[in-house]
């Protein structure tokens, strides 16, 4: 069995890739996918803690986080569709109505 550190390191690396993706990409859909990647990384660390403590509660928290992620994906994509309808673009540099 692998030590917990390795799972946490993998989770940290995936989270960082997600952060860099959110900061560098311009396409709103890809930014959204990077947010999903970060959610997944945190889920991974929750599951590995749960496995190493022999405690089921961490996995239940991951289950609820999956449900919230599904709801968030549906609403977020609806927002992206609505923005595309108004702007004809999902490029975040061209969506600047609320930007100072």
């Amino acid at each position: 069995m692998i030590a917990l550190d390795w799972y946490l390191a993998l989770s940290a690396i995936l989270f960082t890739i997600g952060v860099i993706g959110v900061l560098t990409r311009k396409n709103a859909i890809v930014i959204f996918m990077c947010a999903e990647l970060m959610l997944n990384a945190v889920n991974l660390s929750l599951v590995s803690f749960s496995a190493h403590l022999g405690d089921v509660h961490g996995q239940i928290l991951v289950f609820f986080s999956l449900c919230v992620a599904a709801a968030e994906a549906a609403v977020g994509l609806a927002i992206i569709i609505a923005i595309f309808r108004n702007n004809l673009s999902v490029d975040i540099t061209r969506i600047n109505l609320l930007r100072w």
Partner: protein
Amino acid sequence: MVTYLFILFATLAIAAALAMVLNRSTVNSALFLVLNMLSIAGIYLLLKAQFLAVVQVLVYAGAIMVLFLFVIMLLNVEDEEAVLDKINFRYIISVILGVVVLSYLLYIAGSMADALPPVAEDMAQVGTVEAIGDELFSTYILPLEITAILLTAAVVGAIMMAQHKFK
């Protein structure tokens, strides 16, 4: 054996995540995200969380990614210019910030390395559908119902917002 599988899945997950961020085409990014999520499901299996591995494949790699692909198809998004073409100020700042986040997370994980628990013996019983269902439908019954309401509200809200004439 477990070690080799972990290395395989971890490499696959990191490579797919990197490919997702660096790819120009949105569709390819979505497909790499599917690969990433499948390898994370494999890691869940290594951690003996069978239920979550199946749910990960069904909900994330199945439902959510189909939603993403449908929206990409619907919007007909043009490809971005290659991400690494021109190195500008924004990318440098982003990468520096990423390195800071990574080193901070690794520092936290490393500083408590001695306090981390050893592998639990009875893990094989914890991740099963039975154990999770037991807990979910007794202790966590109220959050479960609230989640149902949340999903209904999200679906109604999504349909409302994506309508053509939004009133």
